[in-house]
């Protein structure tokens, strides 16, 4: 009966109930949309990070990333070809990318600049690293003397597709080595720091230049963004002398810090929205309860305790919160699917130089969070509004007009 009464009490003043429902719905819906928007941004960041540079994670010799070595190649992976074959047998591993990175000089005969070289399996990588934007030419594939330049680097050397460039570097034994390469393409990732320094050459060419058969790292491309811990566990049990590092650690500055920053921002926005909802509901419920003061006095005159009265009013608040929360969630799903279904075009994010589309990605736990918070806000607001009234002297309540 209490639930029935609570439900029917919502029909007493349709305008007030509508206002309260809309307040809660707006709060819950905003939380849901905002959370989905953040998730969408983070997913864009994540996909960009995974498919532009790092893969889902990388394998190094143990502690390689934490140390600075005079001769880093002494700590590179030597039996990588056999390892690559075995890695491909691990469930979820779709791509294996052996890599070397080294600093070198690039010259066009007039200008010489330093850059960071990545020796990669171009054919394999071009299938996975699809957010690498090829501005001119083609991606590095199986061109033995090809070089793919970052946009800023190409500009510094005034190079375009088809031009020749000479790469100078030291072998691992300290002697000079060089190669004449042809620019096959110019890329940009959206990250300026990356685009101004990096260039890619075929792995075989890089190993020849360095005069080594070792690779510095092996990046992995998985079939799922959530499979890394399972894959890492399999790798470490097979090769305990290696480290398996996920992309969010490799790209802590851009990705993980952004995630942490947006999470903090979301927590703050959540508090603001909750406060607005609580104040809005408090106002509506307070006004409504003042009109019912005599009725509540009558309840107590007939034996209801102040807790009974409070329970009834809280039940009403909860029903209001649940209905408002459900409305808000439905509204946010409608917005997600039909109104913002094509995404929102965003200006370049920090560290990026290109626009991107953000999609509202609402996950089940976001729905639960927004729904629960809407109900809690309504419950709390009702409690603040009803507590004093439930404690008011019975005769005073009955006398009130």
């Amino acid at each position: 009966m209490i639930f029935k009464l609570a439900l029917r009490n919502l029909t007493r003043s349709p305008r007030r109930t509508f206002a309260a429902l809309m307040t809660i719905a707006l709060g819950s819906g905003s939380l849901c949309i905002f959370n989905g928007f953040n998730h969408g941004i983070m997913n864009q960041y994540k996909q960009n990070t995974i498919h532009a540079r790092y893969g889902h994670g990388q394998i190094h010799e143990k502690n390689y990333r934490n140390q600075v070595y005079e001769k880093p190649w002494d700590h590179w992976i030597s039996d990588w070809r056999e390892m690559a074959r075995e890695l491909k047998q691990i469930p979820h591993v779709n791509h294996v990318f052996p890599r070397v990175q080294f600093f070198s000089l690039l010259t066009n005969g007039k200008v010489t600049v330093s850059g960071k070289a990545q020796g990669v399996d171009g054919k394999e990588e071009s299938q996975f690293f699809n957010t690498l934007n090829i501005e001119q030419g083609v991606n590095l594939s199986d061109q033995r003397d090809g070089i793919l330049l970052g946009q800023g680097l190409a500009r510094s050397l005034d190079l375009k597709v088809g031009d020749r460039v000479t790469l100078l570097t030291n072998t691992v034994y300290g002697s000079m080595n060089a190669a004449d390469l042809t620019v096959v393409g110019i890329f940009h990732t959206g990250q300026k720091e990356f685009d101004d320094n990096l260039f890619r050459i075929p792995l075989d060419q890089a190993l020849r230049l360095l005069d080594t058969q070792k690779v510095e790292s092996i990046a992995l491309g998985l079939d799922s963004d959530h499979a890394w811990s399972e894959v890492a566990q399999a790798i470490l049990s097979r090769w305990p002398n290696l480290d398996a590092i996920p992309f969010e650690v490799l790209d802590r500055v851009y990705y993980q810090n952004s995630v942490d920053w947006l999470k903090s921002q979301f927590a703050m926005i959540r508090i603001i929205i909750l406060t607005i909802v609580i104040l809005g509901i408090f106002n509506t419920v307070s006004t409504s309860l003042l009109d019912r003061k005599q009725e509540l006095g009558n309840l107590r005159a007939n034996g209801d305790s102040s807790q009974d009265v409070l329970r009834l009013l809280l039940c009403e608040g909860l029903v209001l919160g649940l209905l408002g929360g459900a409305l808000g969630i439905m509204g946010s799903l409608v917005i997600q699917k039909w109104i913002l279904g094509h995404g929102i075009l965003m200006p370049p994010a920090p560290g990026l130089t290109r626009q991107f589309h953000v999609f509202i990605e609402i996950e089940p736990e976001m729905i639960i969070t927004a729904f629960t918070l809407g109900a809690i806000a309504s419950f709390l607001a009702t409690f603040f509004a009803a507590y004093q009234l439930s404690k008011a002297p019975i005769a005073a309540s009955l006398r009130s007009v």
Partner: protein
Amino acid sequence: MSASYSLLYEASKVSFLYRLGDTEIQALESVSCEIKQGERISLSGPSGSGKSTLLNLLGLIEDVQAGSLRFMGREVSKLKEREKNRLRKFELGFIFQSFHLFPVLSAEENVEYFLIKQGLNSKQRKQRVKEALESVQLWEHRQKKPLEMSGGQRQRIAIARAIAKKPQVILADEPTASLDQGTGKEIMSFLKSLNEKEGTTLIVCSHDPMVQGYCNRHIQLKDGRLG
């Protein structure tokens, strides 16, 4: 059921003071009286005489400030809130001038509400609701909501709600003030017959001489004192 006329209330030198800011109003001053079970009492007096305050004290909805008030042999000022709630729930029934019905519940549900609070099972509740609504001749209107009824019908629903609890005492505060004379007489006539048939003590607060005519004892108050 015949009236046993055992002592229900004993008030001895009861005083009550309202404080409105700096102003103090002595609503009752040293009022002493006894009320026996089955009596039909009218509390009368001019506005501000203290009759509603006395009714509130008898209904345990106002705390005794001075003097002694005993209800069913128990000193009211020593009762805990939980015990007072229990007495209000089972032993006291209220009828108010402005009915205080739940507008969102039907007549039937309004009557049933406090029976649920009494812990009666569904069958007992249905039985009592039917008896109460039949006795006020509103069983046919049981599905109607209060706003779909006349003032007299609403007051009869309020009476049905009070009697369905089967209380020892029914306290009625100006029960006919919102009604026309004919309906008021009808209501008082019904309350009188209930008192005669069931032995339920009836205490009616009113300054309407018509109401007093239906009672067998009159307590007259003037300036907070018994007249």
